[in-house]
């Protein structure tokens, strides 16, 4: 290795090559003149002197070459030459270059956009201090009917026990979410609150933007109620007031002092669609922590330094076994088999649900890029054939195989880097679309963006792509004898047979890739349509919904009932309203209650149901009539089910079948809060999501359930457009109590749409990508067929001259294309057969090997191939035998 100084001067020389070349020329010239002058003085003729001088000097060009090699860095210099040459070549055929760069931009852009989503959502660590030591803890009830309850919540006494007894965790904290009314700002607002134990914010290690965060000192019954608010709420409700810290606000009517504002990017719990606006302390009373069987807390733990999750799990198992052994019989306690505690990495729990969808998208865009690369490789291969003579000339004047190979790689590199630059532009645009379309369907969406890792990824795939298709022309070089082509006269250059084979194989492969993608998309589409056709159990059209909350401090149970009763009356008499009601929570997506419920005369049997009901619902006036829920047996609620009247309840069909199979449920008694008599059985309504079974559900008449009506949803059935009722709805609520905020005003159809936003988003993107893939593949086979037809012009001329019918030629060319198409389709079907099983988790009600979808996708696919072959075939039939033969 030469010394640094030499390297530096060589590097400098790269930038002043022309000047240095001139200097050497001049020096050599000067030298030769001086030698010649000397010789002339000695008596030579000028001609002899000049040639003698040259002889003595040696080969001028060799010396110059040695000089240049010593001067610069030969590799870099010839690379620059190659680059300039490549740029010139690409500029010379703008059509080819534009098509190739755009194709690559599409592939690289799609990959960049999707990778930046995957990077931000799945790969990037959570934005907390040492996030790898954070874990989420769950309780489970594996023996629960219907497959058990998994990743379930933890009750307050269980949480306190765990926190007291475990030693693996540096901190163990709990949180739960709710919605609340917040007063004290400009006007009352509906907020999402996160109620958390005191150590939670400190353990995340995110400093507040203003004031302080909540600490364990705030988390006691004796402490002054304190709250920390989100940056967004601070701006929205308090106009960014810099003196917010110390200000008093009311959350659900309770006084709280704002002690801090979190920074804008902070979110906890992470990945939630409804990001919390306020954090308030849990304030558990260790002396009276509440019901051990009331599971409502989510747990986050921070592992001690040096303790692995495995060791922490072992400790949890030991503790659970010990507690199970010590617990008195028939009490609620942790148990290794029936009620264990599990811990998982926190990051996995936040993003785990979207990971399959993300990987599917990444695979889809990977396919698109591959197809794009094949197209460009084919283009380059065709060009390499057209450039045979140029290459032969280069070989003849001394270009080695390595130099030629490098030339092709450099051309590929230039193409793919240009593609990457355009692709980045596409990716930025595409990301915006994705973000707009993905609203509410992927967690951590706010963190999505392009960072260095994404740029590195883009560069990486661009380089890989350039190697892939840069090497394609080599196939041609290896198969054709360049010297022959130099000798070959005129235009009679034909494609070498192996190059032709390679091109056909590549097209078949790209058709196969496109078909795999199309079949995957077809499956997703079918599953999505099935989801649309799911019976939700009610009539969603022309329903308007909204949420209100009645704080317990202002509205004790009795006054809640009378307020809601008046509200329903007022709404029901509005013009354009068919009927109006209230309900505890809106289908089709509600958190499961899984409440223990005593059932009169219940005889447990092994493997049978246990006394537990999945969903409790509170129903307002004419709820079932308003929603359009079917009555199976008995009656709906009516004025007979008022306060003080005999306690009644309505159950859904699943519940009636679960507990009283083959019998009538009417007249039976159950005890959700007190003993109630079943007066009706209604049709099932989706609660766990459209793709899940309905579960057991019971309905309490609202006049007998004032305690559970802190929050309620208003449901109004309109005669016409439900959104036209929004101002009237707001006015009626404000007329009753102007301090009541009203939130989430939307039609029931929008509620249903939101419940399937993730499958819709995924299906939409997959459809987009597979359309692009299909278009690229069609262009690919079109290109190869056109090329092949052009190559065989004279052959077609002879055939026509010999009397071949146009239809015969048409059939011949189309047949050739169709053969490729069939091979590709077959390979694609086999590939799809192997790959669609990975979609199983994303497909609702559709078998990954659904034959109908396979067929329904493959047939139109073949039609597109046919269409792509038709134009070139048509061109083949139009060959004029005279002119074709004259070219011979």
């Amino acid at each position, binding site marked *: 290795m*030469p*010394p640094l*100084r*030499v390297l530096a*001067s*060589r590097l400098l020389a790269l930038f002043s090559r022309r000047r240095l070349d001139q*200097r*050497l020329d*001049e*020096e*050599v010239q*000067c*030298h030769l*003149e*001086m*030698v010649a*002058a000397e010789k002339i003085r000695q008596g030579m003729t000028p001609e002899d002197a000049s040639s003698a001088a040259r002889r*003595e*000097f*040696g*080969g*001028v060009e*060799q*010396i110059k070459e*040695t*000089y240049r*090699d*010593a*001067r610069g860095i*030969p590799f870099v210099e010839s690379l620059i030459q190659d680059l300039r040459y490549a740029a010139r070549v690409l500029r010379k055929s703008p059509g080819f270059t534009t098509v190739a760069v755009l194709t690559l931009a599409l592939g690289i852009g799609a990959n960049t956009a999707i990778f930046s989503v995957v990077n931000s959502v799945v790969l990037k660590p959570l934005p907390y201090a040492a996030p790898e030591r954070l874990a989420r803890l769950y309780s489970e009830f594996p023996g629960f009917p219907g497959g058990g309850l998994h990743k379930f919540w933890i009750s307050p006494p269980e949480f306190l026990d765990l926190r007291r007894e475990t030693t693996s965790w540096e901190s163990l904290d709990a949180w739960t979410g709710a919605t609340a009314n917040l007063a004290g700002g400009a006007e009352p607002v509906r907020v999402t609150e996160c109620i958390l134990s005191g150590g939670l914010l400190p353990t995340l290690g995110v400093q507040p933007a203003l004031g302080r965060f909540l600490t364990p000192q705030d988390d006691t019954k004796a402490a002054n109620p304190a709250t920390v608010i989100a940056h967004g709420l601070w701006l929205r409700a308090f106009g960014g007031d810099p003196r917010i810290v110390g200000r008093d606000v009311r959350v659900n009517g309770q006084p709280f002092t704002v002690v801090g504002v979190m920074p804008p990017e902070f979110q906890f719990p992470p990945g939630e669609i409804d990001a919390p606006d306020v954090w308030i302390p849990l304030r558990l009373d260790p002396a009276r922590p509440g019901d051990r069987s009331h599971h409502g807390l989510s747990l986050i733990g921070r592992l001690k330094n040096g303790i692995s999750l495995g060791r922490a799990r072992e400790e949890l198992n030991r503790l659970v076994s010990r507690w199970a052994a010590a617990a008195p019989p028939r009490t609620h306690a942790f148990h290794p088999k029936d009620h264990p505690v599990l811990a998982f990495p926190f990051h996995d729990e936040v993003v785990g649900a979207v990971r399959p969808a993300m990987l599917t998208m990444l695979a889809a865009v990977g396919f698109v890029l591959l197809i794009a690369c094949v197209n460009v490789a084919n283009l380059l291969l065709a060009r390499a054939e057209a450039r045979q003579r140029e290459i032969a000339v280069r070989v003849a004047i001394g270009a080695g195989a390595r130099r030629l190979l490098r030339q092709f790689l450099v051309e590929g590199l230039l193409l793919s880097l240009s593609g990457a630059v355009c692709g980045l532009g596409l990716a930025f645009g595409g990301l915006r679309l994705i973000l707009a379309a993905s609203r509410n369907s992927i967690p951590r969406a706010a963190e999505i963006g392009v960072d260095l890792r994404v740029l590195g990824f883009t560069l990486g795939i661009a380089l890989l792509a350039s190697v892939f298709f840069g090497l394609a022309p080599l196939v041609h070089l290896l198969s054709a004898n360049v010297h022959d082509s130099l000798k070959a006269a005129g235009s009679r250059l034909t494609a070498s047979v192996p190059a032709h084979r390679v091109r056909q194989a590549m097209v078949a492969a790209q058709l196969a890739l496109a078909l795999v993608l199309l079949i995957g998309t077809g499956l997703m589409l079918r599953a999505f349509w099935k989801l649309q056709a799911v019976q939700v159990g009610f009539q969603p059209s022309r329903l308007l919904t909204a949420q209100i909350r009645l704080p317990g401090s202002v509205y004790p149970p009795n006054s809640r009932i009378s307020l809601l009763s008046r509200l329903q009356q007022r709404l029901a008499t509005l013009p354009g309203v068919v009927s109006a009601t209230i309900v505890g929570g809106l289908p089709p997506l509600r958190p499961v209650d899984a409440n223990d419920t005593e059932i009169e005369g219940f005889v447990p049997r092994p493997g049978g149901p246990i006394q537990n009901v999945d969903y409790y619902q509170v129903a307002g006036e004419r709820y079932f009539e308003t929603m359009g829920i079917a009555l199976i047996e008995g009656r709906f609620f009516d004025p007979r089910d008022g306060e003080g009247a005999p306690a009644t309840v309505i159950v859904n069909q699943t519940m009636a079948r679960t507990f009283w199979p083959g019998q009538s449920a009417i007249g039976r008694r159950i005890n959700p809060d007190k003993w109630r008599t079943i007066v009706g059985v209604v049709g099932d309504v989706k609660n766990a999501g459209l793709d899940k079974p309905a579960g057991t559900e019971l309905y309490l008449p609202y006049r007998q359930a004032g305690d559970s009506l802190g929050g309620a949803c208003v449901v109004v059935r309109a005669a016409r457009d439900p959104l036209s009722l929004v101002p009237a709805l707001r006015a009626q609520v404000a007329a009753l109590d102007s301090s009541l905020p009203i939130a989430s005003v939307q039609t029931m159809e929008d509620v249903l749409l939101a419940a399937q936003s993730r499958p819709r988003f995924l299906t939409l993107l997959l459809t987009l990508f597979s359309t692009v893939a299909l278009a690229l593949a069609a262009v690919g086979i079109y290109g190869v067929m056109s090329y092949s037809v052009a190559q065989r012009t004279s052959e077609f001329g002879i055939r026509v001259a010999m009397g071949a019918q146009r239809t015969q030629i048409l059939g011949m060319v189309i047949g050739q294309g169709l053969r490729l198409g069939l091979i590709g389709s077959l390979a694609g079907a086999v590939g799809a057969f192997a790959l669609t099983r990975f979609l199983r988790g994303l497909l609702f009600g559709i078998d990954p090997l659904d034959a109908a979808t396979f067929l329904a996708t493959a047939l139109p696919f073949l039609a597109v191939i046919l269409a792509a072959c038709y134009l070139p075939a048509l061109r083949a039939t139009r060959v004029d035998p005279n002119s074709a033969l004259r070219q011979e």
Partner: protein
Amino acid sequence: MASEKTDVLQGTLDLIVLRTLESMGPLHGYGISQRLGQLSERALQLNQGTLYPALLRLEQRGWIASEWGRSESNRRARFYSITPAGRKQLRVETESWERMAGIIARLLQPVD
């Protein structure tokens, strides 16, 4: 890289060029090659052109410097001169050369 081989001839050429420039002062390429011819009494028969890559190497190492000037016949020519680093290098090279020459001489002395 092919140009990096430092065989005896090249080392010698470098040494002679440095020595020439030290004793004669700034010279152009032709002047150096003339002087080479005189010194070696035409024993060192190398192509004069070989001199120029050698000059470039020496200049890259900072041992000589060059600038445009006027020859005796008032022709524009590039003149080379030795730098302080070059003088130092020359001393080092000379010593090692002499040491080597001594060793070789002793080795080749006929045994008594």
